[in-house]
């Protein structure tokens, strides 16, 4: 016989001893087993942001046009007179590691309902994905599963996936990152929220029935993954049904049309427990719930199972008293379950009945006010050393070979084989499709206005310099939006890091958040919401700290949207923005020299702000034929991509003064705030003048034309046919 060690009840529920003691103090008694399990999930990192909350307060949340900031299910910002956009990003990293297809699919479902919870119709999805190298069959399996899952859910619900990014690094092999963002539209006058109100108002459960799936999913997402996770944690992964998700969207929007809905929230992480607790706490009221009225898929479910189930496609609503039938009718018309399961009470107490038995009685704020932790931050010596590695002695390779290798790098290659698996056109808004710097969607409600969307993350840079990485993610996302001709109005951020209880990760978290915060302050772009995913760590180590930033921009006229590719022979090609580049943390350094080292360039935020302004104005004035931001692979890769996208060549001369000491630094070095533009020759003077007025450096490089990329260097020439660039760039693995 093996000895059985008795695990303390708080530990079994996922709490620390001191947390358990705090629960007892808050309640003035010991929680019963059901209540204890509720605290276990509500006080998990996933639900409570215990380690990140203190940092997130630093993010600037206010700004002109912000209708709802952080703390709601999604941020809401005005995008046209009377028209608002809701946006939110969320991670589904842990579930996707265990079950890539369903993990990613339910991630899409969840983020759609967060946006729906604000009263918005979802109109766009974006995905930001990180995997191990595609040479590893396991990484390819994860990637293909995740892409299929997003495709399955997004296509079925009829919400286009209009943009995204896919990058590969060893550190994501055991911990893939799956961040999905959603944008929805709604009348600015009808922004809803999740704060319950009105004692006596009925509480309505709507959507799919409740089953035993996903129980404890939030707690699972707050732990490190073990090697055996794929088998043992499968019950913690929910299974989504996009058909039910689609019906829930349509039925909920129809229910909102009645005007009888007071508040609503998705039942996501921690299910009905989280929805009831958060809605009550936000409204400063209480709630009575009758579990026997909750539609169920299975018999014999215990109160704990019903309370913690993370079954998908369910919403909780507070409805005006006496008008519940109108709301129930909308859901039932769409073939969904809808029941009154409780009511709002004036006293701030959450009471849950199972039949006649009172099984839970506690203040909702106790569930939502989890303790926060500050771990001493400490930069590891090794990281500093890595940043200070001397790169000046590296051999300079043949530029053509290096360029072709970079174009074939899995992180650089065309993602067309991925985004063609997503319906990116449904809803008839997509003016600039995926594959460019940012997607542009027209606003049918306010023509010819449009919105631009981009998602960008920065793992490697954040690893070397968390502040630079946080700022770089904001800079790149805002720059992409500006490249197509829009002005950034809001961002939502997703932070993906390792175990926050380690001082090294705390240091990364602090730096990344400060970088985002500083960039947003200077650029005057508010952070209207976000997501934090911690414990992305396994026996093989932690992921790079990976901030993912989704930027929403607004443009006055979508017909002025600027594409990525060169378009007309004779157009002037120029480099606009910063001249500062580094090999530190660059794609070139990793691909060609196999190194992740050096100091990345920290952005000049004031210059970046001026650059954003120049690009939006130039687009509005119709000066630009194309624009493309410089990112992985630097100037040479950006030139190659603009040639391939436009199907036309370019001829440039790089002066010795510009070129500097190392060919590879000029060609492949990376730095923020740099954009490649092409301008009709007769407009170039006006464009250069605009840059001068706005104090943004501009450098004429050459002209569009021919069918080759020709770069005259101080000591030689790079000549590659566009066809060869294309075949390298299309080498998707």
């Amino acid at each position, binding site marked *: 016989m093996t000895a059985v060690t008795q695990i303390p009840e708080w530990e079994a529920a996922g709490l620390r001893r001191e947390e358990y003691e705090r629960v007892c103090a808050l309640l003035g008694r010991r929680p019963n087993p059901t209540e204890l399990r509720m605290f276990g999930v509500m006080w998990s990192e996933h639900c409570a942001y215990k380690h990140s909350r203190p940092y997130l307060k630093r993010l600037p949340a206010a700004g002109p046009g912000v209708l709802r900031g952080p703390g709601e299910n999604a941020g809401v910002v005005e995008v046209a007179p009377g028209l608002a956009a809701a946006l939110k990003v969320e991670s589904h990293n842990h579930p996707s590691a265990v079950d890539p297809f369903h993990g990613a699919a339910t991630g899409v479902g969840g983020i759609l309902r967060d946006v729906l919870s604000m009263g918005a119709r979802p109109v766009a999805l974006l995905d930001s994905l990180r995997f191990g190298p595609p040479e590893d069959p396991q990484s390819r399996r994860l990637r293909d599963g995740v892409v299929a899952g997003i495709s399955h859910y997004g296509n079925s619900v009829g919400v286009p996936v209009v943009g995204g990014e896919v990058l590969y690094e060893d550190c994501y092999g055991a911990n893939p990152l799956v961040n999905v963002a959603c944008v929805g539209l709604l009348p600015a006058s009808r922004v809803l929220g999740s704060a319950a109100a009105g004692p006596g108002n009925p509480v309505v459960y709507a959507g799919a029935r409740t089953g035993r799936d996903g129980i404890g999913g939030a707690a699972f997402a707050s732990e490190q993954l073990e090697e055996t996770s794929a088998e043992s944690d499968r019950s913690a992964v929910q299974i989504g049904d996009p058909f039910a998700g689609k019906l829930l969207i349509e039925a909920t929007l129809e229910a909102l049309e009645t005007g009888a809905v007071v508040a609503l929230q998705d039942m996501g992480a921690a299910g009905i427990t989280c929805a009831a607790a958060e809605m009550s706490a936000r409204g400063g009221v209480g709630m009575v719930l009758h579990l026997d009225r909750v539609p169920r898929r299975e018999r014999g479910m215990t109160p704990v199972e019903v309370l913690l189930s993370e079954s998908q496609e369910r919403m909780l609503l507070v409805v005006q008293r006496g008008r519940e039938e109108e709301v129930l009718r909308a859901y039932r018309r769409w073939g969904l379950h809808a029941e009154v399961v409780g009511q709002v009470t004036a006293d701030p107490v959450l009471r849950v009945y199972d039949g006649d038995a009172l099984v839970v009685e506690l203040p909702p704020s106790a569930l939502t006010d989890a303790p926060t932790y500050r771990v001493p931050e400490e930069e590891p010596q090794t990281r500093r050393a890595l940043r200070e590695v001397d790169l000046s002695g590296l051999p300079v390779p043949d530029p053509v070979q290096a360029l072709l290798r970079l174009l074939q790098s899995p992180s650089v290659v065309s993602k067309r084989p991925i985004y*063609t698996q997503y319906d990116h056109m449904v809803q008839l808004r997509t003016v600039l499709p995926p594959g460019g710097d940012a997607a542009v969607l027209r606003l049918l409600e306010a023509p010819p206005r449009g919105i631009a969307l981009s998602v960008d993350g920065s793992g490697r840079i954040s690893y070397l310099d968390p502040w630079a990485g946080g700022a770089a993610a904001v800079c790149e996302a805002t720059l992409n939006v500006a490249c197509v001709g829009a002005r950034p109005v809001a961002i939502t951020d997703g932070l993906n890091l390792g175990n926050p209880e380690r001082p090294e990760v705390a240091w990364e978290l602090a730096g990344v958040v400060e970088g985002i915060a500083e960039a947003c302050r200077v650029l005057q772009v508010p952070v209207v919401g976000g997501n934090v995913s911690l414990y992305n760590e396994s026996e093989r180590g932690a992921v790079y700290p990976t901030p993912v930033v989704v930027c929403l921009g607004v443009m006055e006229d979508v017909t002025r949207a600027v594409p990525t590719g060169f378009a007309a022979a004779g157009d002037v090609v120029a480099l606009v923005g910063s001249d500062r580049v580094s090999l530190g943390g660059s794609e070139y350094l990793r691909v060609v020299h196999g190194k992740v080292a050096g100091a990345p360039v920290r952005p000049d935020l004031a210059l970046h702000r001026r650059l954003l302004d120049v690009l939006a104005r130039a687009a509005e004035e119709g000066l630009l034929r194309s624009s493309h931001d410089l990112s992985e692979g630097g100037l040479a890769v950006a030139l190659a991509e603009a040639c391939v996208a436009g199907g036309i060549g370019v001829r440039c001369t790089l002066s010795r003064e510009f070129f500097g000491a190392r060919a590879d630094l000029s060609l492949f070095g990376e730095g923020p705030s740099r954009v490649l533009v092409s301008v009709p020759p007769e407009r170039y003077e006006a464009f250069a003048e605009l840059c001068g007025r706005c104090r943004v450096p501009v450098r004429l490089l050459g002209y569009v034309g021919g069918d080759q990329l020709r770069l005259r260097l101080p000591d030689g020439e790079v000549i590659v046919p566009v066809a060869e660039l294309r075949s390298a760039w299309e080498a998707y693995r």
Partner: protein
Amino acid sequence: MSPGASLESDRPRSGLPTPDPRFAVVVFPGSNCDRDCLHVLRDVLGYRAEFVWHEEEDLAGFDAVVLPGGFSYGDYLRPGAVAATSPVVRAVRRFAEAGGLVVGICNGFQVLLEAGLLPGALVRNRGATFRCEWVHLRVERADTPFTALYAPGEVVRMPIAHGDGRYHAPREVLEEVEQRGQVVFRYVDRDGRTTPEANPNGSLHHIAGLVNREGNVLGLMPHPERCSESVLGGQDGRRLFESMDRWLRERARLTAGRTR
């Protein structure tokens, strides 16, 4: 007037206004191009168009029915299979038998095949993945109510977005379909050639769209509603709806002329 007949007529024009044709856009649970089709018909083209719920059993008063794309009833069993048994599709069958114009787009095409209103089947794409992209199509017949405003043999661009769009039929059915000239759209390259690369899903004979024998029911995988406005990258789809409108007006005029 039979659907295949010429739009130009030597009958005397009555000169009296005929009522605008009325379009129905069917909404199944899981349809997701219903709003798009309504937008194009009503907001872009200015037609009379309305949603019709899947439980509707009567299409009286409508002149044309659009079965939109999406995943009707979650595409459970097979794409379009559940929808084919719905009340509204029973009504669509009667409507088609009476000579009404019916167009099924993407999932709507799948529904028409499952309902037996068109011959053949649509199976999983060659390559097994969903594909959303622009394709080139050759207009094989410009004498149908849906294509009169295209030129015969014209190459047009339209988007596709489907996972189950590979047209399949037994050899004898395929031969009959070809013999009777029921193929309306074929996947081709930009020069109009049926190269293997131009076939996005492995459809037999590159079939992208076909009509029934009578010529009043069209099914196609590409999405004409997604290319009816230039801001979305092309407007080759617009003429499909305009052809329908023109044909219906002509029919109404002729009917009015006959009854007077």
